């Protein structure tokens, strides 16, 4: 589904990604881990069009998407969440999701001014879909609360719901359980499982090892912008390099 080919990303003299290649298969949950500053977020930024890579290409279902604008990439079926929560904070939870859902509307200004039937129908669909998604991520009943006023963990869930509303094929999650407690992160793990069952492909970054190891099919490990290991969670957990630079002794086996 997604292919990253020899991508490099330079910031001035700093090489944040160095000739990285990886592929994500249809329907898998892929984990991207690595020490702080190893280039994981940069990778998501490159894939979703927020940065255009210094070198290399990103392909989605055989089509090159690197170099396109973020909104064009989103239209191609990729949607992301942000490491530092990035909601439309003055909107209610429902409005956040409706906004994302209405990116599929075909309405133009004239149909808005004359309130056409087609538009009314589309509007209704968007609202229904949004409610459904809020329910799905477990935010039923919070529709009318302003996004900023939601607790931290729920804000993360809302971001996922908003991303889902664009109907992405590939969902990219940047540290979805940061700031959540154990119980909440278990719930989030369940959610991700359900998503996969609904046919979504997922690429996620997370430092929470219990979450990552229990959830991912494959892990890719970045260090200093290079892929240093790839494999199943158990392979990675036993990889000496990964233990020494990332996991630490306590967590390695």
């Amino acid at each position, binding site marked *: 589904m997604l292919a990253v080919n020899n991508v490099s990303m330079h910031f001035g003299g700093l090489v944040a990604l160095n000739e990285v290649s990886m592929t994500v298969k249809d329907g898998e949950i892929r984990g991207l881990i690595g020490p702080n500053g190893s280039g994981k977020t940069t990778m998501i930024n490159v894939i979703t069009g927020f940065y255009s890579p210094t070198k290399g290409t990103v392909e989605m279902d055989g089509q090159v998407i690197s170099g396109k604008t973020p909104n064009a990439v989103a239209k191609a079926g990729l949607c992301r969440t942000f490491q530092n929560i990035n909601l439309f904070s003055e909107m209610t939870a429902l409005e956040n999701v409706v906004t994302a859902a209405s*990116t599929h509307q075909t309405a133009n200004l004239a149909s808005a001014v004359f309130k056409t039937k087609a538009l009314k129908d589309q509007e209704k669909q968007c609202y229904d879909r949004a409610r459904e998604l809020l329910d799905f991520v477990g935010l039923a009943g919070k529709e009318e609360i302003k996004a900023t006023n939601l607790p931290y963990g729920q804000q993360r869930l809302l971001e996922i719901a908003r991303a889902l509303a664009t109907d992405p094929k590939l969902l990219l999650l940047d540290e979805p359980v940061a700031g959540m407690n154990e119980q909440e992160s278990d719930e989030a793990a369940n959610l991700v499982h359900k998503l996969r069952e609904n046919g979504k492909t997922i690429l996620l970054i997370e430092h929470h090892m219990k979450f990552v190891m229990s959830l991912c099919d494959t892990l890719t490990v970045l260090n200093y912008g290079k892929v240093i290991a790839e494999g199943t969670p158990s392979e990675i957990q036993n990889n000496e390099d990964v233990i020494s630079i990332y996991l630490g002794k306590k967590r390695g086996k």
Partner: protein
Amino acid sequence: MNGIKKHKKLIALVVVLAIMIYLSFNSYFVFVGINALINAIAVMGIVIISGYAKQLHLGQSAFLGIGAYTSAILMTKCGISFWVTIPVAMVIAGVFGWILSIPTLKLKGGSYLALVTQTFGEIIYVLLLNMEWLTNGPFGITGIKAPSVGPVNFVHLQPYFFLCLAFVCIVYFALKRIVKVKFGRFFISIRESEEAAQSIGINTRKYKMIAFVIATAVAGLAGVLYGPFIGYLSPEQFRWQPSLILVSMAIVGGLGSLEGGIVGAVILTFLPELLRSTDQLRMILYGVIVILTLAFLPDGVISLFGKKPREIKAMLSAQWGILSDKALRRKKKKAKALK
């Protein structure tokens, strides 16, 4: 039904105001009233661009100028009907708005936008001033006449007032419908977080442009109405000072809603006229009142609407607490007492 219910207050207000003015038969008040309505149209444009999409716009009166001049030139030089000039002027103002939007797309800070929009307004001013063959330069265009339809002659102030009122309503309801559906949501999403908006597939550039075009086309309409109202156009009338006044109207009324824009336009158009008797103090008082309004009603005068006196009192005193740094002073006092 629901729509009418929601706007019940506003409709009632407008009707009452209109009847009052009509009954008063004081041409001077009607004159100022027309001015307020024309401003209200232009200010609603600012609400769209600055309130919804958070793109600062300090050049709105230039677009009023474009609309007014387009219509006046077409009427006086080509003999085209007033009604036909309305869409033409709106399109031309919109095209200029689109041009203005291009350099603003990349700008991040409001300060940079302030410069570009204000300067753009000055560019229009210099053009109006110097393209004498078209605009008659600093002497301007005289003799712009309002049309008459059947027995109604819009040259008279009262009928013209109702014509403008009708246009305010049309613009209000059209814009209201636009902001209620995806356009409004997308504009707000740009305001809240451009990155997040892009991440869900919103073409933020396109929607910023749309916001600019709507705002400026609406200003063009206001300009068309302004021409026959004053009857004389000169470039000075469309410089940055009136633009700033239009922005003040939007903020004083309440930048977050179209209703706020209308309220602000009415208040700030009447205010300097009501202050006429204070002579030299007029502009000082005007400025002080604007500052005080901003201080006590950060969300605009519209935030008073629909509230009970008790709630208003609570709101104002809470705001006074913030303004006077009550908490801070209390803390300081206590700290001192301890020492």
